Structures are given as C-alpha cells and as structure tokens.
C-alpha cells in the first residue's frame, strides 16, 4: 500500500496554536522497585484531570487482565468505590463490577508473551470535576494491551463515594499480578480547563 495523498507537518502554517486548556502537570516513572505512583499537591485550578500511561509490571505470576487500583486522597477503602466495566479478550466479551469493586486496568505483568520489555499496556483515565465538593467523583477509562495473539481492551467507569476535592492520586499495582512498575513505565497527569 502506498499512500496516494499526504501532507507534511512542516508545510502547515497558521494551525500551530498551543492550546490554553490542556496542561501537563507532572509525570511519574516506574523504578522497578515500587508498585505505587503518586501525584500529590494537585493544583485545584482545572476542571478535569487526565492520566495517560504506558506501563507494565515486573511480576511473572501470570493472569490477564490484571488489575490495579486508583486511590484518591489516600483513601484505600474499596467499599468507597463502585465500578463497572466492559472488556474483551479477543474471543469473548464480558462485563463486571459493582459496589466495592476494584478499578481494573489492562496492564500486563511480565510473563509469557508479556515477558518482553518492549510490550506495555496503555490507557487514558479521565477524572471529572475533581475539585467539586458537592458530589461524588466519577472517572472513566479506556485501557488496553496487545501482544500479537493475546491481550485485552477494557472500558470502565468508577465512582469514588466521597465529595472531597481530589488533591492526590495514587496508582497502586496489584501486588500479585503486576508487582512493581517496570522502569520503562510512565504515568502522565494533565489538567483540562
């Protein structure tokens, strides 16, 4: 296949305007020796937050899709969450979740086809109206991982039953199936006005 029409970014003029509504706040990197990434002292000046990640775990325990948890303001009580998900593994589709359910993300460990350090999971997590103190907080995710014959894609909604403004976010790897975040994992936090 040969592209028959194209454009060159270098030829575009008049469109290279930096948006004033989407801001990079911070990036957390895996070390290989910790299963937690924390964003703290999050500015309260945006309307929404977005986390974009490319990550994998160090565990060789197997099992996919694996899970991790998103904790706000240090609250690790699963009963304060309710989540639902839709997921496909390449052959079947399923839904799951409910009160107290974990927040699953499609992040592989390091086993089987996922042993290669070149293959990571990816995802986009939206955290809406995070500074509002009058309502519970709702997030949505689209995450996935593929290894040419195995993998999965997952959509999820999660409610944190708490009206506090979100000032910190921790992404905690499942200790069994993910272990620690690999050294080439990265989680980037953005603010949207």
């Amino acid at each position, binding site marked *: 296949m040969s592209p028959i029409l194209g454009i060159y970014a270098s030829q575009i003029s008049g469109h290279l305007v930096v948006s004033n509504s989407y801001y*990079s706040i911070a990036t957390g990197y895996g070390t290989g020796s910790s299963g937690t990434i924390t964003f703290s002292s999050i500015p309260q000046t945006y309307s929404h937050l977005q986390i974009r990640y490319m990550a994998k775990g160090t565990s060789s325990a197997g099992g996919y899709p694996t899970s991790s948890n998103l904790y706000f303001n240090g609250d690790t009580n699963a009963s304060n969450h309710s989540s639902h998900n839709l997921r496909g593994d390449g052959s079947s589709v399923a839904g799951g979740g409910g009160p107290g359910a974990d927040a699953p993300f499609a992040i592989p460990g390091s086993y089987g086809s996922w042993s290669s350090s070149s293959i990571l999971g990816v995802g986009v997590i939206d955290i809406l109206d995070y500074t509002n103190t009058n309502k519970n907080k709702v997030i949505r995710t689209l995450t996935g991982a593929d290894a040419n014959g195995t993998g999965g894609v997952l959509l999820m909604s999660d409610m944190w039953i708490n009206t506090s403004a979100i000032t910190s976010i921790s992404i905690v790897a499942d200790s069994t199936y993910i272990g620690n975040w690999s050294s080439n994992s990265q989680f980037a936090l953005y603010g949207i006005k």
Partner: protein
Amino acid sequence: MAAGATYVPIATYTASGSTTTITFSSIPQTYTDLRIISNLVFSGQIYLQFNGDTGGNYSITYVQGTGSSASSGRTTNQTNGMQMGYGVSSNLTVFTADIFNYANTTTYKTALSRDSDAGGLAQASVGLWRNTSNITSIAVYSPGANYSSTSTFTLYGIASA
C-alpha cells in the same frame, strides 16, 4: 518537555473524495503521545500504518457492540496496519486514536482507538506495532473505499512534563 500548555494541533487534512489514504508525514519528535481525531464518511476498515511498514508487524484486540450484540476479536500479523475501526458509508463516523510514547526507540508502539458509527457500531481497540522505531509518519488507510469530501483528520501532539 517542561510542564505547561500542550495538546497541539500538528496538521489537519480534509479528504478530497477520491482518496483512500491520508498520510501525516514528518511528524515532530517533540511530544510524548499523538492523538488523531477524525470525523469521516466512508465504507470500510480503518488502518493505521506507521513509517510505511507493510511487513506483517501489526496486531489488534477489540471489543464492539452493534446495537443487538457484543463481541470481541483480534487479528495478528497484519500487513496493512492496525485495523482500528470501521465505517458505514451513509453515516458519519467519529474515530479517535491515541498513539503512546511514539518517539521512543526501545519499546514496541501501542495505540488505543474509539470508533463510533451511529448507524453501525461502537468499538474500542488496542493495537500493537512490533517495531521499536520512532514513528515519523502515519497513514490512515481505508483499503477499497474513498473517504468522502466531508471527512476530516487532525493530528495532535501531547507533551508530558
């Protein structure tokens, strides 16, 4: 890249009605992720092809709903690119794709897509390109079907702190 405003439009293209391929070339290597947002009318499959590679190095896993059923499937060792969406000619399709860490040279490249066709289906996909090269060009390819002249494609760059 220092913290600050990002999500920058790199290039925009409007189809002519007689092309099956839109190519973003000479992509700047200064961002962390790329995002394609497309509003298009066509009948067929949407492939993302990187750096002109047709070597069978692409694979995907998807989940979709058609309004009456849901399913999941995958393809492996694809040659045209990542098959990340579908379109039906009579409907506008909204197609978005995120390409992560595209400029690094140590990992394979992974992308996520959402494909929403009001008259056909809703689909989410994850795709893998088994190549550690940095991505310098992306072809949005629809074999056998032209994009209508109302189809638009915009490439954005997102830089992390």
